[in-house]
């Protein structure tokens, strides 16, 4: 009995420190040389992440087909929180990313489970998350993001099917995921690029009134331009450890007269160690350049607001 327990005790460290090596394979959706290239790049990247996590070091990208923006994006996340790939053998669907004309412009894999390994106690959020990896047409890794919940994904693909603009909705989902990750990664450059120079940012604030009227809340709105908003964001990024931003209940509405404009309404959860809030965010995306869409409007309203007062495309005059 003692021997068995001793053996178990010796095995325990092995069980707890799982191997860093990750095998990766696509089950379907892609064939040929590019499949092998993508599988190799993915396996190497996931293994490199695990190795870096084990050694508490930076990720070594040598030998991995990954573009600078993607590695920088992972690096920014790594500066705020480490993570580890849960499975050592991954088999997944390969999804095609298409332009609005239906041409394949890249590929994507979703559902890669990771366990967050916070650097300190500033981390607030789920320990178990999933990431998605994007590839360009040659199989090089072009992006890496923490995904939104499955419910969001399911809802968006179902609506895309119903309204026959699945490819565009998948693009929007990807950009919304990048937008969310940019907060978590404190990626101010992404924010600089994604907001249109003449973007309008509207922030609502609940005004507490005592003994005044029957209205439960009153909201005061502040408008800002892009640079003003980004200056505030820079301060927030600087003063906080990990920022966990969650997007839920996403709804996408296409503008009736301007088909390249989409209104995206979502519930945003903002969690930092010392402050958290929830609100309704409405974003107007201009997809005229589908490879670099721009945010024209971003609004934040408190959750307590009446449904009829939530901003929609109708509230903004788009030129």
């Amino acid at each position, binding site marked *: 009995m003692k021997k068995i327990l001793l053996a178990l005790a010796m095995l325990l460290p092995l069980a707890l420190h799982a191997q860093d090596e990750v095998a990766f394979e696509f089950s379907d959706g892609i064939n040929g040389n590019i499949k092998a290239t993508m599988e190799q790049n993915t396996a190497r990247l996931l293994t490199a992440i695990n190795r870096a996590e084990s050694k508490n070091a930076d990720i070594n990208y040598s030998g991995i087909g990954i573009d600078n923006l993607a590695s920088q994006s992972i690096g920014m996340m790594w500066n705020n929180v480490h993570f580890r790939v*849960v499975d050592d053998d991954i088999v997944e669907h390969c999804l095609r990313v298409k332009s609005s004309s239906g041409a394949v412009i890249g590929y994507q894999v979703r559902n890669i489970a990771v366990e967050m390994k916070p650097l300190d106690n500033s981390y607030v959020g789920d320990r*178990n998350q999933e990431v998605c990896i994007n590839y360009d047409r040659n199989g090089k890794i072009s992006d890496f993001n923490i995904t939104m919940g499955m419910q969001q994904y399911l809802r968006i693909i179902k609506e895309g099917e119903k309204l026959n603009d699945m490819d565009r909705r998948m693009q929007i989902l990807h950009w919304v995921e990048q937008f969310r990750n940019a907060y978590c990664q404190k990626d101010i450059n992404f924010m600089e690029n994604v907001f249109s120079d003449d973007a309008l940012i509207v922030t609502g604030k609940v005004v507490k009134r005592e003994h005044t009227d029957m209205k439960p809340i009153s909201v005061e709105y502040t408008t800002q331009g892009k640079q003003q908003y980004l200056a505030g964001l820079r301060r927030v990024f600087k003063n906080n450890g990990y920022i966990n931003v969650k997007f839920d209940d996403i709804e996408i509405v296409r503008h009736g007269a301007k088909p390249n404009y989409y209104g995206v309404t979502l519930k945003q959860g903002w969690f930092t160690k010392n402050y958290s809030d929830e609100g309704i965010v409405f974003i107007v995306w201009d997809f005229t350049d589908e490879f670099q869409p721009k945010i024209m409007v971003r609004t934040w309203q408190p959750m307590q607001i009446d449904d009829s007062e939530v901003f929609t495309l109708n509230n903004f005059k788009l030129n």
Partner: protein
Amino acid sequence: MALVAAALLIGFSATAQTTSKQINQIKRSPLYLYAEATMESETEAQSVAYELLLQQVQEYIASSKSLSAADNVLIKDVKTKGESLSMMRGEMHRVFVYVKKYDIEAVSNTVAVNNNTNTAVNLPAQGATTTTQSTPVPTVTETPAPAQPTSQPQQQQQPAATATTTGKVESPLTGWQQMAMVSLLECPDMTSVRAKLNRLKAEYKIKRYGNADNCPSATDAYWAIFDGSGKLVTILGPGTTQRIDYKNMQYSSLSEYKGMNALWFNLAK
């Protein structure tokens, strides 16, 4: 005490690894369609996983010529045959669901949904919205629809509910043989069946094939049956009076297709 905890941990980890391995085996097999979801509650994960599976099924149907040409497609036994595996992932529940491609079959203009086991996907008219019946229906129902021309005449006379609740036979084919059969059944006509047989022969999966008039042993051969316009009607397995009809997985015989065009072939073993 710590060692007991260690033993428990190892046991738990081993179980999760076994499930994970099982999941990957299924994912690697080309015989299945699959989907999964990881969520806070198992029920929620199961529901999302099934929805995603139905999306997979719809994509599969759209990419399959024989299925996309059908008025309706019956996915047999999604809730029972389309099994699910679940495991914990940290504090989250991972649910993996899958269905055999072979259990997705074309049926003609009558849809019958057998509550707990089957899911019907009604194929839309061109340009129309696809609707999915994913919620359980308490009783077997029939949707009366006007008869329409179809490429599956043998199923036209038989409501799908009868077909799925009585007389189904299990395919004796497994592995690559079943894949070969599925790929042949996906061929719309004689030309593409010939091309597929050629391809399978080059891969040593078909030993030989030929026209009906030069078959050395009709009993031992599989038979692909075509209608007057050359469209594939079904494929019958070897046998005499009881051959498996691989289109609807019921017994049939060559004599039922007397006068129709046919190609025979022998599968390699």
